[in-house]
């Protein structure tokens, strides 16, 4: 089945939904690890949107953006994991609600 046959609106709606699911995950999960994973979901939603838009316009740009986002997401996650490691070492927990030293 050709992706171009699927209306762009449907695809965009789908990616939007994934996007929202990811955001909801960021807001609701307390474990930093899950938050990072939710972020990945959000970024994947973006990727989907790019790819489908590229397909709609018949251009390669969408795919290129997809790859860019993918690689940058990876970098981001790796730094994030490094930080998670440190948090775990310092606090003995990954509960993000425990990180409230900076406030006011």
């Amino acid at each position, binding site marked *: 089945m050709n992706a171009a046959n699927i209306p*762009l*609106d449907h695809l*965009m709606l789908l*990616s939007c939904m994934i*996007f929202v699911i*990811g*955001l909801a995950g*960021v807001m609701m999960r307390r474990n*930093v690890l899950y*938050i*990072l994973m939710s*972020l990945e979901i*959000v*970024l994947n*939603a*973006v990727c989907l*949107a*790019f790819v*489908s*838009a*590229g397909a*709609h*316009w018949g*251009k390669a*740009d*969408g795919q*290129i*953006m997809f790859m*860019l*986002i993918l690689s*940058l997401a990876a*970098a*981001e996650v790796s*730094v*994030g994991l*490094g*930080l*998670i490691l*440190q*948090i775990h070492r*310092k*606090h003995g927990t990954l509960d*993000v609600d425990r*990180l409230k*030293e*900076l*406030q*006011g």
Partner: protein
Amino acid sequence: MNFGFPHFMALLPVISLTVASVVVMLCTAFFRRHGLIAALTLLGLGITLACLHQQSGIAAIEVTPLMQFDRLSVFFSAWILVAAMVVTLLSWHYFRTREGLSEELYVLLLTATLGAVVMVSSIHFASFFLGLEILSVSLFALVAYPVTSLTRKDRSAASPIEAGIKYLILAGIASAMLAMGMAFLYAATGELSFSGIQTMLQTDAVHESRNLYAMGGIVMILAGVAFKLALVPFHMWTPDVYHGAPAPVTAFLATVSKFAMLVLILRAFLFARGDHPEAVIAVVTGVAAVSMLVGNLLALQQNNVKRMLAYSSISHSGYVLVAFLAGMVASTANAIKAEGIEVEAIAFYIVSYLLTSLTAFGVVSVLSSGRERVSYSRESGGNVDAETRDTDGLQDYESLFWKRPVMASVFAIALLSSAGIPLTIGFMGKFYIFAAGVTSALWWLLLVLIASSGIGLFYYLRLVLVMFRLPEGGHDGHGEEVMAPAQTTAAALVREIPVGARWLMVLLGGVILWLGVYPGPLMAEIRDILVAMRVAG
């Protein structure tokens, strides 16, 4: 697509920065010598600056569809590099006496600068996103930096980690929004370059049903941008991250990272001359007004200097948005002949902002560096160790002028510049904003600006006063409760300051004053560049 010698030459600064970061990384692997690495970094930045200088006069040149090197990018890249060099010096001074391994920091600093330079010259969403992420990912690590060098004990360094992870999560959301916005615009127009999108949007080529995409995309992109600029409601990370990060990194965060984003939207703005949807203008107006007010309100009685400056940077973003709005209104209405004063205002203001915050955070950083002379009494503070704590409590600045007249004076100059008091570049920036606002008749917004400046005065002056307050015993009477900082009993951190750092700060303060008194050349330069841009565009 052609790529010849001129293109290579144009790209040279970027290449030079890349090479520098690789070289520094390699050197770090072999020689763990702080001074050497810092010097190498400086050298790399210096060479890049020289490359920039060499192409300062050239005509605009597009290198691939992604980037365009022109006088605008050269001018602002130069400022970024200067700021990066100052931050390098500050970091060297700051981390020199702190324990742990800190050489990798410079690699990150270089890559972050690289990201900023890329952003400044990008004319395409791909390079925009790429530059932004290079910058951001480096910053995640930089903010949390001391953690990596931590070898033992205590929770004292918890705040940088906390700041880092907060920044990472929130910036992740913001980048995702930005990217989603790009995707939407892409879906609406099929273009990813600024000019292409502009053409498509302008020529009504966008299908009616796609208007929603375009609008949604613009708003999402604006949200991503607003996050970097710390505009309300995307501002909440600012104080925590500025507070938690080591002082030199905060300086970098407040200046280079924000500056690059501002330049980028300035460039995008140059493309986006024409009608702006009324809805967008309304939203931006609201965001600008609220940012000015909320930023200043939040800082009102803040006792932590870094947080206070963070809040103040929120309001500054609001101010600069006024100039953007003026441009939007002017190019929309076309009733008033715009003459581009708004763009000049933006350009001038961001330079003034860069200098001012660099100086302010620079002073905080210098004061936080070095070995302390007076030991910090345990019972007065919390669990924060004296050696790693930054000098950012209001009580640390008590009567600073009488102990460290130079640093206090420079800090006062920076604060007054932030407040927009004449004789400083901050005033000229504000003057520009007013001029822009007046040409577009944004009377109400300007009144909000005035009101929020009034609020701002309170905390700037409060800090200035704390610094200049006569030491105890020299004067009859005591300061009253209203203004007194948290505990005057807590011993303030007093550290040695090397001559070099002092001169660096004096230099920055001097530049603020010089450009405040005699801004003509800078104004002329900016106008030249923008006129050239208009001719080219």
